[in-house]
């Protein structure tokens, strides 16, 4: 909280405290746009995540011997492990780019609330992870002859991805400022997203096995609760993570 009050005291940025609601969203949009354009031009983050995801699925193929019988029960697990690993890669990269080129300092100097940066990064990371999912799902369907075009599953992936990036973005912005940043992010992130993964895997396999909604409902509720709680907590503490 003290950061925001400091910002208010600085007369050079009167806009910081009196930004109207519309400008807040415009600022978020601008930062998201910047991320997407940078990714469109370099394509290093998305291509890295994609190739990595395919490799993970390939490894699972050999490690688990994904024959028709096992496929039914492990598909949800394989998908979520793939998204989790690829997601770590993407999150680390997206924050490391900001940190290494000094872009983060530039963003922090902008006369906008710090939470704008947080939400913009969350949205950009969400877009990346959903794009990866959008390519991996059909590929997985073709490779293993399972129908993954299930509206319920897509919902679960969306809810899971929201929770994952809301925690992941916060932790990645912490990890890139540490000396041991490459190994730190998964270690910090995985124990905290375990409830999310449990719920996401259970809900996904519920939808894939065609269970009725009442049986899946508790997991969906847990996903929503996780998303709400962690977005709120991350929003509250993000100021302390980027403070200099």
């Amino acid at each position, binding site marked *: 909280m003290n950061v925001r009050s400091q910002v208010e005291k600085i007369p050079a940025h009167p806009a910081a405290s009196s930004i109207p609601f519309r400008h807040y969203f415009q600022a978020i949009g601008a930062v998201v746009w910047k991320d997407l354009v940078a990714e469109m031009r370099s394509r290093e983050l998305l291509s890295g995540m994609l190739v990595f995801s395919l490799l993970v699925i390939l490894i699972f193929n050999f490690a688990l011997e994904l024959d028709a019988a096992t496929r039914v029960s492990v598909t949800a697990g394989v998908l979520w492990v793939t998204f989790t690993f690829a997601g770590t890669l993407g999150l680390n990269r997206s924050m490391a780019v900001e940190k290494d080129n000094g872009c983060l300092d530039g963003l922090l100097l902008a006369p906008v609330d710090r939470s704008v940066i947080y939400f913009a990064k969350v949205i950009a990371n969400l877009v990346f992870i959903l794009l990866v999912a959008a390519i991996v799902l059909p590929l997985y369907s073709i490779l293993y002859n399972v129908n993954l075009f299930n509206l319920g599953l897509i919902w679960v992936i969306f809810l899971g991805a929201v929770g994952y990036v809301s925690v992941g973005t916060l*932790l990645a912005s912490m990890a890139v400022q540490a*000396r*041991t940043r490459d190994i730190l992010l998964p270690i910090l992130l995985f*124990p*905290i997203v*375990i409830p999310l993964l449990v719920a996401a895997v259970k809900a996904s396999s519920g939808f894939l096995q065609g269970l009725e909604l009442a049986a899946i409902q508790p*997991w969906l509720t*847990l996903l929503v609760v996780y998303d709400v709680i962690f977005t709120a907590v991350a929003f509250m503490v993000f100021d302390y993570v980027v403070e200099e």
Partner: protein
Amino acid sequence: MQAQPRVLTILDYASALLLTLATGMVFFYAPTEAVMGLVQKVFYFHTATAWVGMLSFTVSLGAGIAYLRTGNRRWDLVVLASVEIGMVFMLIAIIMGSIWARPIWNTWWTWDPRLTTVTIMELIYAAYLMLRQGIEDPDRRARFGAVYVILGFVSVPLTFFSIRIFRTIHPVVIGGSDPQATGSFDMTARMLQTFLTSLVVFSLIYVDMLWHRIRLGELADKVEQLKLRLS
């Protein structure tokens, strides 16, 4: 170097004495449980150490929030001290639980909600310690540590609920006992007295250790400052 406060010395002796007393009560005062026999005696210290673990993680959350609000370095020392103590006591609780579970559940380990949650909790706080190690700037280290402690603490109950939906076999001795649980029992008056004594004793040991650890942290800070002045 300042001398150790008198109260702390008294606390040292008191906790050592009381620990002996509690051990004596466990073995000679509390009756042997009819079904499980001697192995049930693990329960008194198992619950007490698990309680200290939970207490210290809660204290570290409070201290973490206090640090973010005030920016006072002392709170960071409290977070670190409490996390370290909590991890050790939780580990003791897990090991004691395993010793009990071997004859009662016929396995050292099972993926029951409580057991899984506690393991993940240990991993979260281990990650906290690794995060601290990776950052040199003490101010930033304290801030990130406090943020991570808050996030970790929030995720623990969610982890518990997520695994709870599978049925649990861990007995609940205090309040609403589930007869389905393997190895649950009713406490007699003497058992209850022993149990409460161990709770109090271990809480006292916690306070004593926390105090020592904070003092150690303060002294380390002072050494650091003296070194800086020399160079």
